[in-house]
């Protein structure tokens, strides 16, 4: 029988506000354990939370960017459970009145994955197991999170991946989160069930907790889908439960069943007041929101003449997109700038994190100056490339690396002299060329380029060589 996947994602994203959700401690990642803490975020008796307005704004931005309705009135609730990383024994979250609801993310195949809700909550601290002891680090406690819950609209692993990638891109793009899976600022729980293709009734679902990379998510989903299909095929039942993915075995394994599920005893957080958002507030936030990625994509292809694929690569990272726009200012061929970024610069940035940070030696102004030299015909493409390498190595400006003499290429008389010399020094290649081997000319051209240290216009030189030989 053919089976169909029914899948929904619950995604936790750490917001990039400077301070925590209920106190003024920094949200910076890392730091010595328990140094980004205060009486409030370690829940000392008598302390009270104070909602950070920026958290509400960032969550509204996330909601608007995913086409959600923003609730004019929402509230915070307490989710009660006991764990040492949760110093108050409750997490302040939103239960039945989330800040945003009913949005969607559009996939490239035209399908829309509906978003049920986006709510704000606080992150917990973390346990560190060392030398047989367990220690608690509350630095992360109280870091603001949004939880984005999708409807079970996802029908393939590829769709799940694309949904999560799009979500990541959008959140980075509007600047509400850096969405680094490896640092835990993007985490994801996957709800999975399968059903015979063509049927409507939903199968029993399992939830796989805490996916921390795209690779693991793909592998975990593959395993879990097959496991469920195998069960159904052999006449057994899927049990509703929470599972975890074991990285070393590549399998998902049971964490707890439905009957062991926590009773969170949600109730309204009495220490905080109702969150009210006016139309005016929403309008203000809308104005500050950067243009949506799809609009930007269109602009990049029309205005800058980039291909969809190139534009995608640049838009994916906000920092790079900003860099590109600065470096392309008043440039005739922005595509050259894009090529420099995607080619030479990307080759020095290994992995997602490095691209996200985009920590390079070349300022966008310097790249702009370099490409303008090409526009003005002062340098040729090969010199541009060679100079960019040097700029990446040294951080120097183009005018520090290219002398006046280098600019303007090689003057025609000099070029002619160099060409004649090269012909004289390569009699074998000349005779091969005259004998019909077109390729032989390249060897002579190589000698010319070498002699001019790459400054000569290769096309021009090739023409000249052909003329001189045929004479």
């Amino acid at each position, binding site marked *: 029988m053919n089976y169909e996947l029914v899948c929904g994602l619950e995604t936790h994203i750490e917001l990039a506000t400077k301070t925590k959700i209920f106190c003024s401690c920094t949200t910076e990642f890392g730091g010595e354990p328990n140094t980004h803490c205060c*009486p409030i975020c*370690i*829940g*000392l*008796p*008598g*302390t*009270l*939370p*104070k*909602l950070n307005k920026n958290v509400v704004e960032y969550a509204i931005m996330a909601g608007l960017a995913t086409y959600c309705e923003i609730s004019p009135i929402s509230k915070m609730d*307490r989710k*009660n459970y*006991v764990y*040492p990383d949760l*110093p*108050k*024994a*409750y997490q302040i979250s939103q239960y039945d009145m989330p800040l945003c609801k009913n949005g969607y993310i559009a996939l490239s195949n035209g399908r829309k994955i509906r978003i049920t809700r986006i709510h704000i909550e606080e992150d917990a601290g973390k346990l560190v197991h060392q030398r047989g002891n*367990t220690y*608690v680090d509350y630095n992360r406690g109280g870091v603001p999170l949004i939880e984005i819950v999708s409807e079970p609209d996802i029908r393939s692993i590829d769709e799940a991946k694309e949904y999560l990638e799009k979500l990541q891109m959008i959140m980075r793009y509007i600047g509400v989160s850096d969405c680094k899976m490896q640092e835990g600022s993007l985490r994801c729980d996957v709800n999975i069930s399968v059903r015979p293709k063509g049927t409507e009734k939903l199968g029993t679902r399992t939830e796989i907790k805490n996916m921390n990379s795209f690779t693991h998510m793909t592998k975990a989903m593959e395993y879990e889908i097959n496991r469920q299909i195998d069960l159904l095929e052999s006449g057994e039942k899927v049990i509703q439960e929470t599972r975890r993915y074991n990285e070393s075995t590549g399998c998902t394994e049971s964490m707890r069943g439905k009957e062991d599920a926590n*009773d969170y*005893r*949600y*109730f309204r957080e*009495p*220490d*905080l*007041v109702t969150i009210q958002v006016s139309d005016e507030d929403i309008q203000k936030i809308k104005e500050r929101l950067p243009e949506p990625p799809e609009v930007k994509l269109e602009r990049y292809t029309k205005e800058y003449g980039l291909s969809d694929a190139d534009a995608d690569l640049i838009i994916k990272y906000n920092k790079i997109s900003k860099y590109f726009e600065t470096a392309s200012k008043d440039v005739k061929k922005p595509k050259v700038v894009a090529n420099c970024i995607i080619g030479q610069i990307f080759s020095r940035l290994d992995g997602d994190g490095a691209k996200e940070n985009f920590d390079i030696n070349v300022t966008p102004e310097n790249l702009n100056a370099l490409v303008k030299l090409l526009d003005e015909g002062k340098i040729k493409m090969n010199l541009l490339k060679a100079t960019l390498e040097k700029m990446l190595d040294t951080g120097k400006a183009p005018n520090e690396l290219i002398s006046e003499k280098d600019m303007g290429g090689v003057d025609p008389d000099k070029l002619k002299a160099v060409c004649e010399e090269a012909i004289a020094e390569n009699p074998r290649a000349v005779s091969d060329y005259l004998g019909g081997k077109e390729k032989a000319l390249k060897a002579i051209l190589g000698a010319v380029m070498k002699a001019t240290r790459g400054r000569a216009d290769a096309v021009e030189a090739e023409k000249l060589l052909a003329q001189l030989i045929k004479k």
Partner: protein
Amino acid sequence: MDSQIKKLSELMASKQISCVELTQKYIDAIENENNKINAYVNQTPDAAIEAAKRVDEKIASGETLLPLEGIPMTLKDNISTKGIETTCCSNILKNYYPIYNATVWETLKRQNAVLLGKTNMDEFAMGSSSETSCFGGALNPHDFSRVAGGSSGGVASAVGGNLAVYGLGSDTGGSIRQPASFCGLVGLKPTYGAVSRFGLIAYASSFDQIGPITTNVEDTALVYDAISVYDDKDSTCRGRVNEPVCKSLKNSIKGMKIGIAKEYFDGIRDDVNSAVQNAIKIYESLGAEIVYFDMPSLKYSLPVYYILACAEASSNLGRYDGIRYGYKTPHYSDRDEMVCKTRSEGFGKEVKRRILLGTYVLSAGYYDAYYKKAQNLRGTLVNAFDDAFTKCDTILAPTVPMTAFPLNFTAKDAVETYLTDICTVPVNIAGLPAVSIPCGFDNAGLPIGMQLIGNRFCESTILNAAYQYENAVGEKAFKSANMGVNLS
């Protein structure tokens, strides 16, 4: 009753007594007589003398004193004091030294208030006699075989026993007004949101409110004016929204409408009832208009209060797990056992009872029948009071159906004890202000109290009415216990 705070302030300003001398009198009295009443659980004489010296320096340099400057006072042991052990009178918080100050204490400290020590209370403010304290109960200064009341029993015991000029307690279901009533004192439960709760160790967050216990109405007004300030750290705190209440104490109450809801008098002991009826007559003679009406929804008050307060408490008290501060069980084999044993050994019986009750009413399957229903009825009670205040300016009612309990009364039957909160809990449910003032004595000479309930942020109305009553009866309704510092 004249303001003791004003009188002492004048004595200090006119250099008839230095602040250090005054403070030393209280320190000595506590040293000698606290054992009679067990009011203080932690004394801070060194810090008190330090503060007193600063006040004397100010006086010497000719500076004018702020209203509460140099006045020896006390705080209930659930108000966080930096570097001073704050236990909520629970074994689970023994050796807990806060690293920050509650906003109220920060405010008073800036006025050079002289803190004599922390006072006794029911464990985590859960109780009506202070006897659930891990230090044993605070006794009534008028009769040592009786309790001082609760949960702010230590504050009332200390102020009533002349071991402090005033104190701050907290009132979740009557915990300021009931002990004030039992000890013949004035106790104000302010409007929810008038005084910052930041640093008050929570029992039930949507009910808790800090307020003063004093020997007279004007002192209550002075302390209330000082502590009812906006606090950025407490989202539910607006501070006092009107003029200082001290300004309107002496206003005439001619034409003031005083409401009487008959439900407040159901099951009230006869002597308490007749004391309040006498007070009504006095108000009539002062020109107030008495308005009678029914408030049938008051009958829901006790279940609503105990369901909602316990639900919040079960969540608020989840953090005491022995990991970060306070008591930790010495013997355990794993984390779960550590938390379980710490809580089993650290909490007393009444606290455990309320945690269990609160956990139960919030549980899946019971939530709708208890918590949700109680929450809806809370709305009904709020509306009932809103309606009542269209008919009157203040509601007059007994504070407690009886006078101070004998010792161990509350230990016998928890539900019986809960029932004695019948008159005090409604205002906490509705977030209203209420002041309890003495209005006579029973046959055994124990004080009887009555309360004046106001609309939200109308502390000036109820304190005005309280002041005028106090002024009219003179010393008759008041009696100083024969102990502590004699200021006359």
